[in-house]
């Protein structure tokens, strides 16, 4: 019995020892992990804060910024997912996007459709895997997975649409010699939107997404006119049509102000009816485009053309068309009209009052309410603001204004010194200037000084008192 007891206890001991050792190792690992520096891709810093780092406000801010940026890209890609579009090989090089989750650059070099590679990437399994890993590592919630990727169902739909599109273009493009770059129907809205923008001089022509776009080779007028011409039996298509299409982002198109969906659908249906009529895709788009433009000019029928009844705003006089961004006309906000000036001024004043009031009130609340002239200061501040606005024209009836002033060793209210001054003022004209100058020149001699002077003159005993 005595032998068995230790024998029994031994394995327990060993197990305990093992478990304790394991614990120690785990602790060591934890300590090690804590001490280890790791790189946070979101904040772009090396840190040793471990998992805690994800909950720091700076990290959260950076993460939300990153997500919002990437979400924009995804939204752009989703636009083309719904509206598949051909991409010109020339523009393929311009379109690419950086996937932050996969750390890779997705370019459109090999793709025939706009942001095709991007869509494929966003739908790929690798992307999903990387995305999940990223969300796990840096936080942000797993529920966001779907907002940063494209589901396979969507991808399948997109592929189908693309097939249909290629099929259509293959049929319509039979017999054409040049490369097949027929834009899908969605290009028309693009173009019309561009036109609308041009018409309204909307300044986001200068915004960022316009910058990374291919240079404008033909004025939007011409492109538009080409589309317009499509209504007529002879349609001329050229690569120039594509010059406008790819760069437009979904933001622009989804803007309800610029895109009138009813008009578009009407136009589209109309246009579809003409699709079967004729498709002469010419390789020299430039010439054909111009001829079409001329035709349009000759016809001059803006409201009369089919499908455009609701889009009459697009057609305007040639003189007017001169005064736009492309012709170097000054932007409307530079034109100094009175109304604009006034409105600007008011805006500024409004801004000032909005911005400065809280700070001022805070400042004045900190100041002692019993300070000298507190009531006056508050009143004056309001007055000054009113003067800034131009409501009150000060300086009237203030010729006589004098500040509050207390005379030497004067007792009583300070208004008395003012009254004294007024009295003197009335007297002075009678007394004439000489006496005034005498008063002016006389320096102050105190009693003591007088006494000292007297004593000094009378005798030598000046030391006492």
């Amino acid at each position, binding site marked *: 019995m005595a032998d068995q007891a230790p024998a029994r206890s031994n394995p327990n001991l060993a197990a305990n020892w093992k478990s304790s050792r394991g614990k120690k190792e785990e602790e060591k690992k934890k300590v090690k992990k804590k001490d280890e520096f790791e790189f946070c891709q979101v904040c772009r810093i090396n840190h040793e804060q471990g998992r805690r780092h994800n909950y720091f406000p700076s990290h959260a801010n950076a993460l939300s910024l990153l997500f919002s940026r990437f979400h924009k890209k995804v939204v752009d890609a989703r636009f083309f997912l719904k509206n598949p579009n051909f991409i010109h090989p020339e523009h393929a090089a311009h379109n690419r996007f950086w996937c932050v989750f996969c750390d890779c650059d997705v370019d459109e070099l090999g793709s025939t459709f706009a942001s095709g590679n991007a869509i494929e990437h966003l739908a790929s399994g690798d992307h999903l895997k990387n995305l999940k890993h990223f969300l796990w590592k840096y936080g942000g919630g797993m529920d966001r997975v779907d907002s940063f990727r494209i589901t396979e169902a969507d991808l399948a739909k997109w592929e189908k649409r693309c097939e249909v599109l290629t099929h259509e273009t293959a049929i319509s493009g039979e017999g054409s010699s040049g490369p097949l770059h027929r834009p899908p129907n969605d290009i028309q809205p693009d173009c019309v939107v561009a036109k609308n923008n041009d018409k309204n001089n909307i300044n986001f022509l200068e915004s960022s997404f316009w910058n990374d776009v291919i240079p404008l080779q033909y004025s939007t007028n011409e492109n538009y006119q080409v589309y317009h011409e499509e209504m007529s039996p002879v349609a001329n298509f050229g690569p120039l049509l594509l010059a406008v299409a790819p760069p437009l982002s979904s933001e622009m198109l989804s803007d309800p102000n610029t895109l009138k969906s009813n008009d578009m659908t009407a136009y589209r249906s109309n246009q579809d009816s003409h699709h079967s009529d004729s498709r002469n895709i010419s390789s020299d788009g430039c010439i054909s485009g111009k001829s079409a433009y001329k035709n349009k000019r000759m016809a001059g029928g803006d409201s009369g053309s089919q499908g455009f009844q609701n889009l009459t705003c697009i057609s305007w006089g040639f003189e007017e068309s001169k005064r736009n961004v492309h012709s170097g006309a000054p932007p409307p906000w530079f034109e100094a009209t009175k109304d604009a000036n006034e409105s600007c001024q008011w805006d500024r004043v409004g801004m000032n009052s909005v911005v400065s009031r809280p700070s001022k009130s805070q400042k004045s609340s900190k*100041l002692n309410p019993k300070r*000298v002239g507190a009531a006056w200061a508050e009143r*004056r*501040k309001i007055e000054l603001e009113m003067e800034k606005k131009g409501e009150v024209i000060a300086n009237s009836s203030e010729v006589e204004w004098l*500040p509050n002033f207390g005379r*030497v060793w004067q007792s009583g209210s300070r208004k008395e010194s003012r009254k004294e001054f007024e009295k003197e003022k009335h007297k002075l004209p009678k007394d004439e200037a000489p006496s005034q100058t005498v008063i002016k020149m006389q320096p*102050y001699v*105190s009693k003591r000084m007088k006494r000292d002077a007297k004593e000094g003159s009378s005798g030598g005993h000046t030391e006492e008192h």
Partner: protein
Amino acid sequence: MSFLLTTLTKKREVDSIIRETIDKVLVLRFGRSSDAICLQLDDILSKSARDVSKFANIALVDIDSEDIEVYVKYFDITLIPSTVFFFNAHHMKMDSGTADNTKWIGAFHRKQDFIDVVEAIYRGAMKGKLIAFNRILAVAE
């Protein structure tokens, strides 16, 4: 030296500077820029203008201009340079042991003396006092 600070030659200018200086001490030096002691004072004022800029504005008033005469009379300015202090358009008196407590007559010994005077006036004004006490000696005396 007067070019370093704003010089006022019109009553309206003086009015407006008094009325536009809010919650700050306004230091008005009455004198003429050709006077020797005025020059000395202007030097001190211009050097310390930046130091006190958070709680004081400094301006020079040219007593030779006719438009200012009203103020010269109103403030009883008989000796130049005379420095008058205002706070929220209220005249600030200072008892510095001299006979005249309505203004500072003469230059200051040092920059710091001036800053001390302005600070004493500001502190007093913020507590609602119309008169400040400070014991420094003027150069002129």
